């Protein structure tokens, strides 16, 4: 029978990025600061577990369904950005460069993991692209073989609907130096070169 302390440490060690030693340090820290850290954390976790839900429109996680992004009237409803996961959606939001709506796919087509089109939220995407006055769908998927295979598959399904389908550019990152770039990125950047001036 594990003590409550060991049990908590073991639960924390199951989280990504946290090993057994870090977990024990966290447990000791929380027990030392029960009022300031532990009880607020328990309260936040309970509320998140009870209240956070997946948006049935876009697949984002939030406190309401539809989520805050889907109900935000200041966002452009004609632009739809397709991302693989909620983490990618957050990355786009952090950049503050996109003011349209999102669609979280829930993964990419993968032969290795046996992910088929039916396992992703593709039907919902097609319905949204068809119904909601969407003019452009931006495929913001990873620049990997699986990500781009999925992007091509989606483009094939979306083009007949009559929406403009675009994807993010591949190439040099801001601040990147040619000397330190991997060959793949350099090759993609060269292939996607554009007219200067």
């Amino acid at each position: 029978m594990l003590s409550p302390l060991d049990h908590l440490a073991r639960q924390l060690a199951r989280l990504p990025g946290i090993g057994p030693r870090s977990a024990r340090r966290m447990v000791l820290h929380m027990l030392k600061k029960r009022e300031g850290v532990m009880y607020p954390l328990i309260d936040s976790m309970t509320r998140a577990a009870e209240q956070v839900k997946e948006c049935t429109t876009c697949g984002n996680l939030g406190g309401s369904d539809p989520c805050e992004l889907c109900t935000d009237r200041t966002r452009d409803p004609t632009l739809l950005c397709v991302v693989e996961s909620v983490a990618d959606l957050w990355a786009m939001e952090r950049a503050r460069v996109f003011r349209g709506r999102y669609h979280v796919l829930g993964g990419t087509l993968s032969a290795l993991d046996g992910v088929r089109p039916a396992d992703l939220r593709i039907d919902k995407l097609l319905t949204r692209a068809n119904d909601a006055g969407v003019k452009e769908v931006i495929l913001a998927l990873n620049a990997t073989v699986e990500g781009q295979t999925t992007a091509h598959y989606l483009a094939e399904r979306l083009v007949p609907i009559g929406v403009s389908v675009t994807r993010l550019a591949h190439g040099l990152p801001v601040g990147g130096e040619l000397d330190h770039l991997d060959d793949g990125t350099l090759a993609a950047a060269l292939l996607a070169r554009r007219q200067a001036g």
Partner: protein
Amino acid sequence: MEWTDEGLVLSSRPHGENAAVVTLLTAAHGRHAGMVHGGQGRAARSLLQPGNHVEAQWRARLTDQLGSYTLDLAEAQAALWLDAPEILALIASACAVTEASLPERQPMPGVYAGLATLLGLRDPSLWAPVYVKWEISLLHALGYGLDLSQCASGGGGDDLAYISPRTGRAVSREAGAPYHDKLFILPSFLLGSGTWTDEDIAQGLEITAHFLSRHVFINPHSRLLIPRDGDLPLARQRLRAFYQKNAGH
């Protein structure tokens, strides 16, 4: 134990939080897996794309251990074709078929050379016919070669027009005519003609799919890639659908 070899990335599966178990098809050591520490990191992910050509150093305390790889990129094949859906489908299929069909740690220099040639092609129009020929060479390497040199029912190597789905041998137009509906039509590019259509490619893929299902994937090495006995890997199924659609089937 330690060796250095060149290889082609077939797959990369996450292992733990940061590492990846990577399977390579190596020139001298066959299909060989190994752990890549930090294989889920940002830098490693571009290196571990299927189809990439790498220089590999493998180390383990004992031969039968998984061991770990240190990899250097020799050529980034996948990045060149991110905008080409057909070629991405061919790369994914070639890697999935190789991974699911070859035994582990058994040198297959012919299959390696064929796959390296396919992945190194720079002319996109050549990929599909070379892919079909590579699958035929793979069947041959696994002991299920097709015989396209002469007619199975006697006669020479002239006017070959069909392949028997049972024996994998070519049949002449005259001998095969009564069994037209039961035989595969032999696309002319498999006999050396320099031209082909999407219909020919779709037909070639049907032929190799039939023999791969019948002989190779009937007793699969990997349950993960192949859901049921006789099924082709998912990436190969998508490739087949892609060309069937292009050919208007």
